């Protein structure tokens, strides 16, 4: 039986799609058969971040409407056999996603995948709600910034009351904090909320801290999930995060300021 993980945040632009792409890629790199689904109907983007935008023929809504089979719509990653992508539709019809339709697709995927990663759209509207509804676990992506933290708290409230597991009342969705765009130097100066602050406010276990990194943008430019970028701090942070998710004990990195040597100060090496 597959495990369904939603990547959510409430606020837009905090790194949900970046996290979904790298997290799913990481799980596949570790040998797990993984499908990643873009729930952002109307504003498809995961395909670009994964570098498969030219291979999208059928999408999520096509499968729900029976216009294509799941097999036709799943895009197999070029580098990783075990990684498959299901693109969002670009339809402007807000009601294209139905609870029954989403449930059927997830059930079908669960037959032969180990992990299903649901990339939620921003907000708490239908697409975001459906991405969360069937989840077993949730990665709550948060920036150390007031609006992002408040929105994450709001999303946590919805997860604990409205998700399917919560409705059944047996167990609850397992929540993980993913703190992204973290800048330890600014934290040290008192200019940015610290990891401890965010942990204290949201009160959920930390899965990983991803430092603010120039490679996130350059990787998205070329359609490569940042986890694949060798030597990138954000990439390494995502590798650690995936390992922790799979149960490895990995110490947290990138949470304290790296003092730059004179050489890198002068020549700007990162």
């Amino acid at each position, binding site marked *: 039986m597959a495990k369904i993980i939603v990547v959510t945040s409430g606020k837009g632009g905090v790194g949900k799609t970046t996290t979904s792409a790298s997290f799913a890629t990481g799980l596949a790199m570790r040998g797990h058969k993984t499908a990643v689904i873009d729930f952002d109907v109307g504003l498809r983007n995961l395909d670009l971040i994964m570098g498969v935008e030219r291979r999208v023929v059928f999408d999520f809504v096509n499968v729900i409407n029976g216009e294509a089979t799941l097999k036709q719509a799943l895009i197999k990653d070029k580098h990783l056999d075990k990684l498959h992508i299901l693109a969002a539709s670009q339809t402007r019809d807000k009601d294209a996603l139905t609870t029954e339709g989403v449930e059927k697709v997830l059930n079908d995927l669960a037959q032969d995948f180990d992990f299903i990663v649901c990339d939620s759209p921003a907000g708490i509207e239908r697409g975001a709600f459906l991405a969360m509804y069937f989840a077993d676990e949730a990665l709550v992506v948060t920036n150390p910034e007031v609006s992002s*933290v*408040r929105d994450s708290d*709001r999303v946590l409230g919805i997860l604990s*009351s409205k998700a399917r597991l919560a409705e059944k009342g047996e167990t609850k969705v397992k929540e993980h904090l993913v703190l992204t765009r973290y800048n330890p130097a600014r934290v040290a100066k*008192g200019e*940015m909320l610290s990891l401890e*602050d965010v942990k*204290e406010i949201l009160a959920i276990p930390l899965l990983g801290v991803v430092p603010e990194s120039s490679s996130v943008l350059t990787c998205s430019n070329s359609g490569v999930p940042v986890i694949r970028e060798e030597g990138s701090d954000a990439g390494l942070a995502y590798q650690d995060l995936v390992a922790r998710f799979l149960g490895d004990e990995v110490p947290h990195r990138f949470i304290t300021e790296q003092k730059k040597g004179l050489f890198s100060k002068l020549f700007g090496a990162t």
Partner: protein
Amino acid sequence: MDWLKFFRAEKNNTAKTAKDRLMLAVAYQRSGQANGPAYLPRLREELLGVVRKYIQVPDEAVQFSVQREGGLEVLELNITLPDQ
């Protein structure tokens, strides 16, 4: 006088301000007022009116919260009576 800032580092700790503001915002959200039923503010006003028939209490003396315990939604109402 930029160098003076060095001695006033405490005052410029905006992260601290952010945390304090967030604690309040999040407490409000969790109290259930943000995601509780739409009639909650009116209910609060009317109950406050009834209480005031008998005893004068300030606005903040009445605390409302909606909590979920298991499958149940619990409305909790706390009225702090003033010292006589």
